[in-house]
């Protein structure tokens, strides 16, 4: 409502009013030429297999921009993939992933620990020795008690809610009831009985089940030591005490934090990280398109989220050979897919689920997730980065990426719905890729007679209130649900337990949205953790993958790839195979 009283407003000439349109047309006429300086090309995808610009040059400032923010800068309170990578700059866990190009980058090596854990008692007891003389940034020596305390504090979810739950589920003793050190009222404040510290450099974990993968579990930054007398709980994120090459210089919640070199640090404490740049700035909540433009203009060096550039930058990079030579498109270990719920009729019949698998147009799905550089068409329930991965194609995803309607129709008659059926597709309405892919899925399924209605939900409460609540899924007939997943560690357990094990189904926040409860699969997961050799575990992984696909509770869309651009002047650029993005622990910059 504008004019409130009678006015005499003359209107001018209509045509002259279209200033905005003129500007826009100027845009359309121009080609997408870039005015950024072209860096010397070193080869497309070179950083996935080697270290680009290796250098030991010290100095300069590395600027990271992030389109959102870490869930927390407190290493004990974080789960985001990029943050597991980044926190190693100031928090040293017991083990970490190797900084080495290629597949070896997905292997765990000791960090704070002197060697990988020693497993006894059938993989139920794990002993770690920590390096002596490791110090916090204030000069105090790190003891095994600090490691124990770091794990203990993560048990108080009211203060530190974000991190993984493996310690809570795996540790024996009083772990199930332990309320965390802030609320611990037990006698002598023993803390977690399952973690013992026989001396200042030894930590022993007692598990309630055999767990061969425990070295991966302690790679989470939850084991990075925290001194009990300096712990400030929810406020520790403002300045976590560093045991890594960098320490906090400043922190503004949701806006920016700055790291400077930690003078106490000694490279022997964690050989996987380096102390090269003299300043690291992280800007948070920056517009995603801005990030890409700044990256290519050389104003910043890294996109901290590491999930790839937006469509506009992708087009620019891929169509300009010198820009392309300065980028990498690694498989980043994530997968995008659709859960096929096995309880919502008629998808409770496996043949109806198989019909969906056959009918989906994988090419259109791939386009929705960013085209060939956004992901490669997937045909298995585990991505290639998982140990034990073997490619197979039960539903012709690779041989007939446009969808196999004939086979779908065959499955439909087997499940008693020869003319198709109706169901709903749930997706996150504030994730543009899922908005696009769900529409693509809807369109391709309709060709087989499967009529779907799209139901969008906000990402924030997708898992807590809707897709992740089995009751809601059943009562609202959500047969197909969009999802994405990254592995907690690169083997089938770290990838798939939460997705496919029947025990993982929970009433809210569920990730096994297909509601698979196949006793054979459940057994295999257990056997994996009791198995003593990697070869055995790989064999089991293959079986799990194959069975999950036979059960058709997952419609794989793509193995995600991320088109990353190497910032100007960055040294030691290498894609780590586990994190699926540049290894933030080793970066330096060619500046003074």
């Amino acid at each position, binding site marked *: 409502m504008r004019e409130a009283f009678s006015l005499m407003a003359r209107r001018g000439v209509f045509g002259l009013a279209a200033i905005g349109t003129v500007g*826009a047309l100027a845009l359309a006429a121009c080609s997408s030429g870039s005015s950024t300086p072209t860096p010397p090309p070193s080869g497309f995808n070179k950083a996935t297999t080697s270290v680009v610009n290796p250098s030991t040059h010290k100095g300069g400032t590395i600027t990271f921009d992030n389109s959102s923010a870490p869930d927390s800068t407190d290493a004990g309170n974080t789960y985001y993939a990029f943050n597991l990578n980044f926190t190693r700059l100031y928090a040293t866990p017991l083990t970490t992933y190797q900084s080495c190009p290629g597949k070896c980058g997905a292997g765990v090596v000791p960090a704070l620990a002197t060697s990988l854990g020693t497993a006894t008692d059938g993989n139920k007891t794990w002993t770690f020795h920590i390096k002596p003389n490791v110090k916090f940034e204030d000069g105090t020596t790190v003891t095994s008690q600090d490691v124990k305390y770091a794990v203990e504090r993560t048990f108080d979810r009211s203060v530190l809610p974000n991190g993984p739950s493996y310690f809570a589920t795996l540790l024996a003793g009083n772990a199930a009831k332990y309320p965390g050190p802030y609320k611990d009222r037990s006698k002598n404040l023993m803390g977690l009985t399952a973690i013992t510290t026989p001396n200042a450099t030894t930590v022993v974990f007692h598990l309630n089940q055999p767990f061969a993968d425990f070295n991966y579990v302690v790679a989470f930054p939850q084991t990075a030591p925290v001194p009990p007398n300096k712990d400030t709980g929810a406020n520790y994120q403002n300045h976590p005490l560093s045991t890594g090459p960098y320490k906090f210089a400043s922190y503004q919640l949701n806006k920016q934090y700055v790291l400077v070199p930690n003078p106490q640090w000694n490279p022997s404490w964690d050989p996987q990280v380096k102390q090269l740049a003299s300043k690291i700035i992280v800007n948070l909540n920056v517009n995603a398109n801005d990030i890409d433009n700044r990256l290519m203009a050389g104003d910043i060096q890294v996109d901290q989220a590491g999930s790839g550039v937006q469509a506009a930058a992708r087009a620019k990079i891929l169509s300009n050979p010198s820009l392309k030579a300065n980028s990498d498109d690694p498989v980043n270990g994530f997968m995008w897919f659709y859960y096929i719920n096995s309880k919502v009729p008629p998808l409770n019949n496996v043949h109806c689920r198989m019909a969906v698998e056959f009918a989906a147009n994988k090419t259109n799905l791939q*386009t929705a997730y960013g085209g060939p550089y956004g992901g490669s068409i997937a045909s298995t329930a585990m991505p290639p980065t998982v140990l034990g991965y073997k490619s197979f194609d039960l539903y012709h995803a690779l041989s007939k990426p446009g969808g196999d309607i004939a086979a779908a129709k065959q499955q439909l008659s087997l499940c008693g719905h020869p003319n198709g059926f109706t169901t709903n597709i749930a997706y996150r309405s504030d994730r543009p890729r899922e*908005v696009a892919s769900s529409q693509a899925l809807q369109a391709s399924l309709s060709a087989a007679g499967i009529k779907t209605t799209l139901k969008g939900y906000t990402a924030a409460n997708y898992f807590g209130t809707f897709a992740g609540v089995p009751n809601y899924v059943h009562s609202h007939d959500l047969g197909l649900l969009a999802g994405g997943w990254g592995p907690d560690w690169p083997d089938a357990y770290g990838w798939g337990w939460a997705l496919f094990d029947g025990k993982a189904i929970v009433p809210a926040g569920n990730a096994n949205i297909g509601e698979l409860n196949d006793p054979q699969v459940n057994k295999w997961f257990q056997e994996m953790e009791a198995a003593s050799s990697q070869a055995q575990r790989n064999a089991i992984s293959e079986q799990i993958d194959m069975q999950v696909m036979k059960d058709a509770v997952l419609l794989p869309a793509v193995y995600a790839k991320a088109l990353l651009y190497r910032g100007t002047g960055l040294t030691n650029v290498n894609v780590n195979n586990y994190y699926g993005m540049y290894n933030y622990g080793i970066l330096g910059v060619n500046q003074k």
Partner: protein
Amino acid sequence: MTAPLEVSTEAAAPESVLTGVGAKAIEGRSLGQIAWMRLRRDKVAMAGGVVVILLVIVAIIGPFFVQNPNIYHANLINSTFSRPNGPFGGISVAHPLGVEPLTGRDMLARIVIGARYSLLIGFLATALAVVLGVLAGVIAGYFGGWVDSVIARSMDIFLAFPLLVFAIALVGVIPGSAFGLSGNTLRVFLLVFIIGFFAWPYMGRIIRGQTLSLRVREFVDAARSIGGRGPYILFRELLPNLIGPILVYATLLIPTNILFEAALDYLGVGLIPPTPSWGQMLSNAVSQGFFAVDPMYMIIPGLAIFITILAFNLFGDGLRDALDPKSR
């Protein structure tokens, strides 16, 4: 709503402003024919009116003549770059306005059907706002006293809300099916309700001001003196004199509500995909960076919104000028 769209809200000016000026503006139905003559002479306003009518026609029957807006044409897209093949967004004989990046869906069809929804929601929301606003304004203005106070304060309350936040929140909170409706129908109703319900104070304030000034005029006294009472005076004397401003401000409210709907689409709480909507196309163009790869995807819906808003504004302005005895 004008408010959240960072467009001025002088309609929410204090009553005294409106009282003072409004009283001079409208004379009554006897002016109708004069107004129509003057409107006809105003070429620019008539042009606006014609465009409005054309838009309405396109919105009503257009969807029957365009192709299916939801069909994917993967062959028309370069999926590496997520853009249509061919210049200007893939314009061709088969697709006169090109195709969408990423999906290859026909732009013309999506624009036409988007027009239907935009206009529908704009009109309905305005209708709701007008009905509520006129009722409230007339009652408050005529009866005065505590009735006036209550209504005026409730208008204040509505004006105090940051509307966009509430719209986003409400849409996010209402489940997929409620009140017997579901899907897009429910969403349309919800949008109409939100936009209209938050827009009525603007109308209400104006009408209240007009009523306040009309109430003290002689013809009302005359009507009272011959025995007319409240409802008679309201409906037979006051309302006809208010038709003028109601019409004018309704016409000016429509573009605002269309913009509001586009803004809601832009922020992700508009219509449910795959239903086409102008605001959503603009939003995709922005958030996924298509504007740099395929500018037409941004320009075409932007132009559509622009032309619609402009036409309504031109016509509304002309209408107001025609009804104002002091112009020219």
